[in-house]
Structures are given as structure tokens and as C-alpha cells.
């Protein structure tokens, strides 16, 4: 198994590097490897500006966002013990979007309001989601999450009607270096935290009663992982906007490739999520040049059918009860 896992890690790293190189070269203007080397000594050239000011921030941002969203999904699945739990379909992302919009309208003077308000929105949605019996009932959780998502999407539309401020489509287009640095700092902190807390996600495979008898602080673990997942998701939503399904597609595929141990699953999901997001964004900005398809649209097109197949086939591990 370990050798097998090593191969998958090698595979995704090779894929990631190849896609990064390709993403630097493709776009409205093709900049080949030879030209890439040339422009390194021509900082005033148009191609240099295209690569360093437009493509690179976009590539780095999509890598961080993909990794963050994939890990956020895996953490939610561990806590809710549900393979399709993900901040994007449970209303966390849309709540973050709504609060972000509220920030633009109500406190435009507040520094860092996008992230702060998005985080507040995510935590509010999380609080609503975890009330009552949703934690113990996987079907109830999803239904409440979908309702929550629809409510916050509706509220955003309601608030923005007649206003200049709108919830913009989630895209990496026009990502600046400032956005990229913000994402890098927020994302890397969260991802490091996730790697540190990976064993806790494994603990939650046992029932709460069993965990209590071995002295594990279940509430502390559950809330730490939930807040970390929320933090990762809203950090992406604050800068780029809500992007669906990365957190469902990636961890579920990763489980089949590298197994169910979160200490392996989280780093693999990080890499695979980064690759998927970059591949989706690169494809989205090259298939209908000079126009482009947003990352959120690309992921909806890829992720929606994946979730349907996942649920209809009913394969994968959904827990056992043993004597």
C-alpha cells in the first residue's frame, strides 16, 4: 500500500508541475519555452508583463485555492462523517459571500473587511448548521445545508438588487499580486494547520461514546477541525468567491487512490486540489479565447455530475457497525 501511495504522490506532483508550466505558456498569447527564457531578461516587454503580472498570480492563487478547498472538504467530511459534506454545498461559502457583500455596503471603511466579514458569515452558517440533530443525521445535515445555501444566495440577490455592489462571479481573472499574497499567507497557514491536525480527523472515525472512553476531547477536536475547514473555505471565498465541489470531488477520489488515513489523505488532497483548480482555470481561460469560463462554472460542470455519480453508485466507505 505504501509503495502504491508513493506512486500516486509522484504522479500528482508530476501532473502539477506539467500543468503549471503549461499554464504559464497558454492564454490569448502563446509564450513558448524559448520565449519564456528570453523575457526573463526583458522586464519591460509585453510578454513579461503577461507572464509575471497576469498569469503567475493567477496560477499561484488557483493552486492555493484548490488545495484549501479540497482540504476544507476533507475536514468537513471527517467531522460530519459524511462523504459529501463540503462547505460549498452546506451554505458556508454562500454565507461568506453574503456577509462580504454586506461589508461592502455597510462598513466600506473597515480594513480587511472582505476576509473578516466572510469569516463571520462562515461561522454564522456553521453555527446554524450544527444546531439540533444535523450532526447526528447525515441526510438532515445535507438538506439543512442546501437550504442554508439557497437562503444566503437569495439574501445576496435581495440585498444587491438596486445596489452597485454585487456578488461577482467567482473567477481568477484579474487576480492581483496583492490578492495572491493574501491568499498565500492565509492558505499556507490553514494548510499547515490541517497537516498538524490530520490525526484528529482520524480520531473522529470512532463514535463519540468510544472516544469519550479513551479520554479524547471530542468537542475540542470537532470544533477545531470545523473552524479550520471554515477558515480555509472563507479565505478563498473572501478573495476569489465561492467555488463549488472541489471539496467533494478531490477527497473522494483521493480516498480511492491513497486510502482513508487523513495523514496521507490531507496532503494528497492538497496537491490534487491544487492541480484540479489550476487545470480547471487554465482550461476555462483557453477554450473560448479571448473570452473565458469562470473557475466556479468549470467546477460546477465537473463537480455536479461527480456528486450525482458518487451518490447513485453508492460506492465507497460509509461506515460499519461491528459487534
Amino acid at each position, binding site marked *: *500500500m505504501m509503495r502504491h501511495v508513493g506512486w500516486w504522490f509522484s504522479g500528482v506532483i508530476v501532473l502539477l508541475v506539467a500543468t503549471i508550466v503549461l499554464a504559464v505558456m497558454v492564454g490569448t498569447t502563446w509564450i513558448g519555452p524559448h520565449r519564456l527564457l528570453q523575457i526573463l531578461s526583458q522586464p519591460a516587454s509585453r510578454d513579461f508583463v503577461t507572464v509575471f503580472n497576469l498569469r503567475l498570480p493567477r496560477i499561484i492563487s488557483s493552486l492555493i485555492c484548490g488545495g484549501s478547498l479540497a482540504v476544507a472538504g476533507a475536514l468537513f467530511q*471527517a467531522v460530519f*462523517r459524511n462523504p459529501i459534506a463540503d462547505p460549498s454545498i452546506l451554505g458556508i461559502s454562500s454565507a461568506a459571500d453574503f456577509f462580504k457583500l454586506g461589508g461592502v455596503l455597510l462598513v466600506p471603511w473597515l480594513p480587511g473587511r472582505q476576509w473578516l466579514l466572510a469569516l463571520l458569515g462562515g461561522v454564522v452558517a456553521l453555527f446554524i448548521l450544527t444546531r439540533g440533530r444535523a450532526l447526528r443525521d447525515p441526510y438532515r445535515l445535507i438538506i439543512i445545508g442546501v437550504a442554508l445555501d439557497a437562503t444566503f444566495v437569495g439574501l445576496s440577490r435581495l440585498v444587491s438588487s438596486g445596489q452597485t455592489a454585487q456578488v461577482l462571479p467567482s473567477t481568477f481573472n484579474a487576480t492581483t499580486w496583492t490578492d495572491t499574497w493574501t491568499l498565500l499567507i492565509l492558505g499556507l497557514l490553514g494548510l499547515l494547520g490541517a497537516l*498538524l491536525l490530520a*490525526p*484528529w480527523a*482520524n*480520531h*473522529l*472515525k*470512532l*463514535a463519540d*461514546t*468510544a472516544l*469519550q*472512553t*479513551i*479520554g*479524547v*476531547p471530542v468537542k475540542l477536536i470537532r470544533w477545531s477541525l470545523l473552524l479550520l475547514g471554515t477558515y480555509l473555505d472563507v479565505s478563498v471565498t473572501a478573495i476569489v468567491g465561492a467555488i463549488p465541489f472541489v471539496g467533494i470531488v478531490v477527497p473522494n477520489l483521493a480516498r480511492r487512490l491513497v*486510502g*482513508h*488515513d487523513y495523514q496521507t489523505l490531507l496532503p494528497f488532497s492538497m496537491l490534487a486540489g491544487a492541480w484540479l483548480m489550476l487545470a480547471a482555470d487554465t482550461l476555462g481561460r483557453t477554450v473560448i479565447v479571448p473570452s473565458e469560463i469562470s473557475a466556479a462554472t468549470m467546477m460546477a460542470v465537473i463537480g455536479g455530475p461527480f456528486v450525482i455519480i458518487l451518490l447513485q453508485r453508492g460506492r465507497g*466507505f460509509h*461506515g*460499519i*457497525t*461491528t*459487534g
Partner: protein
Amino acid sequence: MELQQVRFRYPGQATGLAELTGTFPLGKVTTIIGPNGAGKSTLLKLLSRQLQADQGSITLGHKALTSYSAKQLAQQVAVVSQRHELYDDMTVAAVVKMGRLPYHGLFATVSDEEIAAYLEQTQLTDLADEHLQNLSGGQQQRVWLAMALAQEPRVLLLDEPTTYLDVHYQQVLMTQLRRLARQGLTVIQVLHDINQAFAVSDWLWLLRAGKLVATGTPAQLRQAKLLAQAFATPIEIVEVPRLGPYIVQVPATD
């Protein structure tokens, strides 16, 4: 382990335990017997602090159970439940390692060496990397026992541990529990098979409707009238060659 006037009621229900006072002798196998609804599993949950008594006290080594931190208690008391839920795939080794968590910090990783003895004790060494969902009921039960033993507890609580085991594994488990008791472990279990309870136990607790009807050695409690009253059914004790006294339920006559 000692109970002093322990009373417990489930909220909004009439069932529970009333004024239980008694002792579980250390280093012995004690079995709690009684009809359905007598409060046997509730008592085990009180002993593991999964439930809190409304009144009275439970002490372990002259110290109130409530005064132990969660981690301290996990080092003293381990539980093997009747049913275990696993929400995601785990290997045998990963489950057994969970039993060592009471001895580590929250971020620590348990090594393979640390659990080797418990795997060997439960004959699971060859299955260490096997996934739990691929094991038989008997093998899975051994995994949960190995996890409990990894806690190095003073008291081991088992709720109907033989329910999902065939006759052979029931025998193996009971022999193992007796061996552990000889090594100093206090074993407290709930069993439905009354003859098995009398055969393997050093001490018995007989419950009925939340009350302690009698407590003593199997020889002291092997009384047809006492058992008939407790189980509300006619009972006789017959002598079976090579087996000794055997408790049988006799059909009621008009």
C-alpha cells in the same frame, strides 16, 4: 470499585437504577446478570462515567469516579461495548493505537512497537494491516478488546461481549478474560447467558428492575428460587454429567 446508594433515572422515563450499594472485587471476574430492562447496561455506563449518577457515589481505589479527568479515567477504566460504530475505514493497528491515546499528548503519534504486545495478546499480529471491514465478527471483537487492553486499565467493562461470537470464540474470550483477571485486571461484564455467567465468574451481581437483588459467588447465588424470582420464570437447577449444575428454565404448568 464500590457503589454507595447510587440512583439514576433516564430523563422522562421510569426506568433506571435505585439505591445500588455494592462492591466489585478487584482482580476478579464479576458478571452482572438479570432480565431485560434490569439496568445492567445502564450500570456499566455509570461505571465508565458515560452516564452520571443522580445520587450516590462510585469510587475506584477510594477515589470518586467524578474526580478523575477524562484521560485519567481512560487509564483506569476501559470499555468494550456490545456494538461499535466506525464511520470510516481503519486498519486493525490504527484502532488499537487509539487505545494508547490516554498516555499521549493530543498531537502525538503512537508507534507500531507500542501496540505490538496488545496485538499479540489478542492474536491479531498477522492482521495488523488488515482493514476492519474485512474481518469476521469474532476478529472485530478481538480488535476492540485489544484497543481496551492498550489502555492498560485497572478495570475492564464489557457489555454482552459474546453476542456476536460463535461458541468457540465465546470460550476463547472467556478464557482470556479469566487469564487477565489472574494478572490483576478487574473484569466487570454483562452477560445474558446465565450458565456462562455462573461458569466464568468469581462474583455475580443479580439485578431486577433497577435493584440489586443479590450479590455473591456463583455457589452462593445458584438457588433456583432466587433466580426464578429475579427472572420471573420457573427455574430448576439440574446436574449434568461432566458439566455439573446447570440452570434450566422449565415450562410453566397450568
